[in-house]
C-alpha cells in the first residue's frame, strides 16, 4: 500500500480540459494519464500552445479539469494547497513588497501557528538557500531577472511543499543565468527531496534536470505523446554530460519527437 502510494504520488486520470471562451469552446487537453513518483523530477515539454502550462495549472489546482480526476498524495486536488507550491513563469513577485516580505507572505500563511521569530527564521533560511541574503530588503524592481526568479523559488520552497510546480521558470532569463539557476535548482532539489513538475520548452533543460521527460503532442486536444526515462546518474554535471553518449542520445530523442514526429506546422 505504502509502495503503491509512493509510485503514484501525483496522479492524473483521463484528464480532459475544455475552455469555454467567447470565440467558442476550445479543447486543450484530451485523455492525459500520468503517474508521478514521490521525489521524482518530471519535465513536461512541447511546442508552445500545446497546453503544458494547463497541465501544471491543473496540478496546482488553479484550474479544474472538465473531465477526469487529479490526485496528490492520495487525495483529490480540489484547489490550490500549500503542499503544492508554484514557481511562476514571470516570477509574479509583488512589486510593493521587499524580497523578504514576498517570501514572508507565503510562510506566514502556511505556518500560521508559529511565532513571528520562527516565521522570520524560515524566511531568512529560504532566501539564504537561493543565495540572496544580501538583497532580502530590496524590492523586485531593484534586482535582476535571475534574482527575481530566485526569490520566486525561495517563496515556493519556504512553504515546504511536497510538490514543486515550475512553469517555465527560466524561460525569460539569459542563457548563462539560466544555466546557473538550473545547477542550483538541481542542488536544492537533491537536498529537499521533494517531487517536482517543470514545464519547459528547452530540450537541454528537460534532459539535464529530469528523471522523466513527458513529451506532449500539439494542440488542440493535446495529449502525452511519449515519456522518456532519463537514467543518468546524479549529481549531474553539465560539462561532463555535454560529451556523454547517453545524454546526447536522450537529447536527440526529444528533438526527434519535437521536430520530426510532432513538428509544429507553420509556426
Amino acid at each position, binding site marked *: 500500500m505504502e509502495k503503491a502510494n509512493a509510485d503514484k504520488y501525483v496522479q492524473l486520470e483521463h484528464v480532459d480540459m475544455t475552455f469555454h471562451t467567447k470565440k467558442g469552446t476550445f479543447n486543450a487537453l484530451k485523455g492525459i494519464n500520468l503517474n508521478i513518483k514521490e521525489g521524482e523530477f518530471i519535465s513536461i515539454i512541447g511546442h508552445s500552445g500545446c497546453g503544458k502550462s494547463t497541465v501544471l495549472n491543473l496540478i496546482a489546482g488553479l484550474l479544474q479539469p472538465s473531465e477526469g480526476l487529479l490526485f496528490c498524495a492520495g487525495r483529490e486536488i480540489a484547489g490550490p494547497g*500549500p503542499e503544492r507550491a508554484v514557481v511562476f513563469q514571470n516570477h*509574479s513577485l*509583488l512589486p*510593493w*513588497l521587499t524580497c523578504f516580505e514576498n517570501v514572508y*507572505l*507565503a510562510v506566514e*500563511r502556511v505556518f500560521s501557528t508559529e511565532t513571528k521569530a520562527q516565521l522570520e527564521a524560515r524566511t531568512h533560511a529560504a532566501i539564504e538557500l537561493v543565495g540572496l541574503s544580501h538583497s532580502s530588503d530590496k524590492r523586485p524592481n531593484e534586482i535582476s531577472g535571475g534574482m527575481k526568479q530566485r526569490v520566486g523559488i525561495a517563496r515556493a520552497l519556504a512553504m515546504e511543499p511536497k510538490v514543486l510546480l515550475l512553469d517555465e521558470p527560466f524561460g525569460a532569463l539569459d542563457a548563462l543565468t539560466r544555466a546557473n539557476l538550473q545547477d542550483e535548482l538541481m542542488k536544492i532539489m537533491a537536498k529537499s527531496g521533494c517531487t517536482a513538475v517543470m514545464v519547459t520548452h528547452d530540450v537541454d533543460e528537460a534532459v539535464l534536470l529530469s528523471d522523466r521527460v513527458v513529451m506532449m503532442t500539439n494542440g488542440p486536444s493535446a495529449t502525452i505523446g511519449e515519456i522518456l526515462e532519463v537514467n543518468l546518474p546524479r549529481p549531474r554535471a553539465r560539462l561532463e554530460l555535454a560529451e556523454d553518449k547517453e545524454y546526447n542520445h536522450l537529447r536527440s530523442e526529444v528533438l526527434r519527437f519535437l521536430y520530426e514526429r510532432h513538428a509544429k506546422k507553420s509556426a
Partner: protein
Amino acid sequence: MTNTTVNKIMPTAKSFSLSSLNTQAYRFFRWVLPPIFGLFLLVVIWALISEKTPELPGPIKTWASAVELFSDPFYDHGINDKGVGWNILASLQRVGLGFGLAALIGIPLGFIIGRFEFISRMTAPVISLLRPVSPLAWLPIGLLVFKAANPAAIWVIFISAVWPMIINTAVGVGKVPQDYMNVAKVLNLSEWKIVTKILFPFVLPYMMTGVRLSIGVAWLVIVAAEMLTGGVGIGFWVWDEWNNLNVEHIIIAIFVVGIVGLLLELILTQIAKRFSYE
C-alpha cells in the same frame, strides 16, 4: 578609426560648454515663456474688453482692489460681512467634510464593487443613472432632509465627489493582474491579506486619480452650491458682491477659486506621487 573619432571630438570640446549653456537657456525660456505669454494675453484681452465696457473693471483697478482686500483678509463685521480669508476657509471646510465623507464611503464601496461581480452588476445601473445628474439637483433633497443650508451644501459636495472615487477604485480593482490573484490563490491568502497586500497597493494609484478628480469636481460645485445656500463661503461672497455690484471683488473671487483649486490639485498630485510604489 579610433584616432579619427578622438580628433573629431577634441576640437568641439571647447565649444561644448558654451553651446550647452545656450541650449539650457533656450530650454528654460521655451519652458517658461509660453505660460507667461498666455497669462499676459489673458490680461491684455481683459483690459481691451474692459475698455469697451465701462461696467467691467480693468486689471489695474481690480489689482488695487485686491491689494486692499487682502490687506485684511480676516476681519469680521457680523454674519454677512466677513473677510475673504474667512470665506475661503468656510468653503474649504465644507469641501473637506463632503469630500472626506465621500472618500470614506466611495473608496470601500469601489473595492467591493471591483471585487464582486454580482455587486458590480447590481450597482452598475444605479451608478449610471445617478452619475450624470448635476450635483446641484440634489440640493433641494439635501435641504428637505437636513432642514439646514450647511449640511445640504456638504451633501451636494459629497454626491459630486463620491462617483469618481467609486468608479476609479472599482476600475483599479478590476485591473489587478491575474498573476497576482494566482499568487494569492496558490499561497491561499485570506481575503484580508488579499485586500491589504495585493489589492490596496495595486489600486492606490487608481484611487488617487479618483481622489484628484473628486476634489476638482467638489471645488467646482462648492461655488454654485454656496450661491444657493448663502451664509459664509466663497460662492456666497460672489453672489453678495454681485448684489452690491462690486464687480472687482467678483473677478478677484474667480482668481481665488482658480488658485485654490490649482493648489488642491497640486497637493494631491504630490501625495499621489509619494504613495506610488514604482
